[in-house]
């Protein structure tokens, strides 16, 4: 009898507990991201701050590997019907996400809740299609040139390079003086080639860079692309450029003093300043003289909201996005990583607090994107299956640099391959 009572009592207590837990249940949000290394901690910091302020919402940030891996994980989660609420997708995946039929456009759920007008124009332009914002800008960056001031001084160079001719001359001087073995290295070769197009106001693909209808043709076989790759290859042959790998591995060459200049994403700024044992300078991307003026393109990633969740959860997502765009949060994110502070208010606060004048390296990229000319060609390109096209172009650059084929042949080949990828994509989706 006693035993029975105990069992019943236990069961009742258990039920009571679980009922209590249901009533006090918080809304769980899953957030998958690709921020590795020091940036993981910066994301955690944001999420922890949010969770503390919102006892009824709990965001779990999960690191899911590189950008490409995160996108793959996201896709498989959608296919198995179990998507997270928020996925961070790099700019290259934008078209894939737009065509996925698996996302909720940010403007639809956040209309009137978040003032997107306050987002800095070039960033807003990049993530908007037909004037509507589809994903939440999160970590935006662009490319700029870093240089080793100590090595420059050693070679007797007093100013930073403005043009590719400067890069060549300074590079040769640096090699000659023994200040470094090579002049310049860069990461993300295909992205830098895209940057060069936008920066000189030259389109990269047809249909206005894929923004007025699907792009069906890339312009890799055009004169500009060939001029760029030929100039680079020429610098490789002169030992001025040392190829440094596809993503961030060139940073190591720069930090080790192998090269005196580095073209890399602004998101490396904090980590480079922290680990460099020399004085780091930054400046605008070098220009090719005699070409038009456009703007450097936004890179990085944005946050996409996935279908298959309740309205309540989407409300929580909007809360989270509101928090992200709050001035203090934006500023912290910028300081922790080097990514752009993405709202005008945040920029103003940073200026008021003399952040930029004390840390001029954080200002460089900013001035670069704001001083350029806004034009369709400078807004960045949208391509179907961009992931694969990046790979094709990276390969072309590598082929030219390693002497497998001439710059012209490599680009012609890449152009054919990329066009066929686009054609496949268009056949699948129509128009």
């Amino acid at each position, binding site marked *: 009898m006693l035993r029975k009572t105990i069992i019943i009592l236990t069961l009742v207590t258990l039920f009571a507990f679980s009922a209590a837990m249901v009533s006090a249940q918080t809304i769980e949000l899953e957030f998958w991201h690709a921020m590795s290394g020091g940036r993981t901690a910066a994301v955690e910091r944001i999420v922890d701050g949010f969770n503390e302020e919102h006892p009824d919402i709990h965001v779990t940030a999960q690191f899911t590997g590189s950008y490409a891996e995160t996108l*793959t994980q996201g896709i498989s989660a959608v296919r198995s019907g179990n998507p997270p609420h928020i996925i961070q997708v790099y700019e290259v995946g934008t078209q894939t996400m737009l065509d996925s039929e698996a996302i909720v456009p940010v403007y639809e759920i956040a209309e009137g809740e978040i003032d997107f007008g306050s987002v800095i124009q070039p960033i807003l332009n990049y993530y908007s299609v037909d004037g509507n914002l589809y994903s939440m800008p999160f970590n935006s960056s662009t490319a700029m040139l870093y240089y080793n001031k100590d090595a420059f001084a050693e070679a007797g160079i007093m100013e930073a390079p403005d043009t590719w001719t400067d890069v060549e001359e300074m590079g040769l001087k640096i090699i000659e003086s023994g200040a470094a073995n090579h002049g310049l290295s860069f990461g993300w070769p295909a992205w830098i080639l895209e940057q060069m197009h936008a920066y000189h106001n030259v389109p990269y693909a047809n249909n206005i860079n894929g923004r007025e209808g699907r792009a069906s043709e890339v312009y890799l076989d055009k004169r500009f692309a060939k001029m760029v790759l030929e100039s680079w290859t020429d610098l490789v042959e002169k030992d001025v450029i040392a190829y440094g*790998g596809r993503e961030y*591995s060139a940073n190591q060459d720069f930090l080790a003093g192998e090269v005196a200049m580095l073209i890399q994403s602004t998101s490396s700024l904090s980590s480079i300043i922290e680990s460099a044992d020399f004085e780091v300078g930054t400046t605008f991307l070098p220009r090719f003289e005699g070409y038009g003026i456009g703007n450097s393109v936004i890179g990085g990633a944005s946050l996409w909201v996935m279908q298959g969740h309740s309205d309540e959860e989407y409300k929580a997502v909007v809360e989270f996005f509101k928090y992200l765009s709050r001035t203090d949060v934006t500023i912290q994110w910028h300081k922790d990583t080097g990514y752009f502070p993405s709202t005008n208010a945040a920029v103003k606060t940073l200026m008021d607090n003399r952040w930029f004048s004390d840390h001029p390296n954080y200002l460089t990229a900013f001035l670069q994107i704001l001083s350029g000319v806004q034009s369709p060609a400078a807004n960045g390109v949208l391509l179907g299956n961009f*992931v*694969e096209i990046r790979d094709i172009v990276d390969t072309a650059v590598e082929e030219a*640099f*390693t002497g497998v084929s001439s710059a012209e042949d490599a680009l012609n080949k890449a152009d054919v391959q990329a066009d066929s990828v686009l054609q496949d994509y268009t056949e699948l989706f129509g128009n």
Partner: protein
Amino acid sequence: MNSKFAKKYRYLAYLLIAPSIIIVTTFLIYPSAQSLYLSFFRSTPFGNRQIFVGIENFQRLLTSPAYWNSLTRSLVFTAITVFISISSALILAVVTNKKIKGAKIYKSLLIWPFAFSFAFAGIIWGVLLHPNVGIMSYYIKLLTTLDFNWINNGTAAFTLIIIASSWRMLGYNFIFFIAALQNVSPELLEAADIDGASPVTKFWKITFPLISPITFFLLIMNTLQVFFLTFGVVDVLTQGGPARATDIVTYKLFRDAFLSMRTGYASAQSIILFVFVAIITIIQFKYAGEKVFYQ
């Protein structure tokens, strides 16, 4: 075998085999057939659109320079790696099998690469030969002025994955050779010694015939393992680059299937790989029959 359990236990035989058959059909045969099916389609990354394209995926593959590059590189890579690792393992096994002091210690010190995965082997060798921090690349440069930079030089990268994979396979092959050599009777070799046979003659006349079945077995196993499992080395080190110098078939397959997400195109590659395995299997049966499996 003449004696067996009575017929009334026959149900038990089926019951005992059933689990293996269920696993094999569900996770091996059915998906393989599915590979063939998928290879006739093109679909979007999210799988929301799919169109039938017939044999277009195969046509494209077989006319694609990138795929031929990938195939040739895999075959060359496999051939060199298998040759290096089998021949060096065999030499070391024969030498350590001699009656010498400390043979046991030598043996155990030569086996351990076997415990390392291809990915681990890749990381270690990648650092040893790293252009900035690697001690080996540093001394190579100092001694030969050769810049072994696997980040921007295709030949260096290709050499690197061969070295890392051969090192890993060496340990594996060494184990099998040691086991096989235990069957070579020392008396026989001593008798040959008395007859004044040279070590080389002894090896070719006595040892080698006895271990040739295992050598053949290892040849087959190594070819398949190196062809299919070295993915890890490439993924942690070069990701197929630079300029596709290390874009071995499994890496290309992975990239097309899971990064570009072209499932049809990737499945067609699977089918071509199946043809490769089928050829190896036919060779295996033709020259060794079922025997090879028994090792």
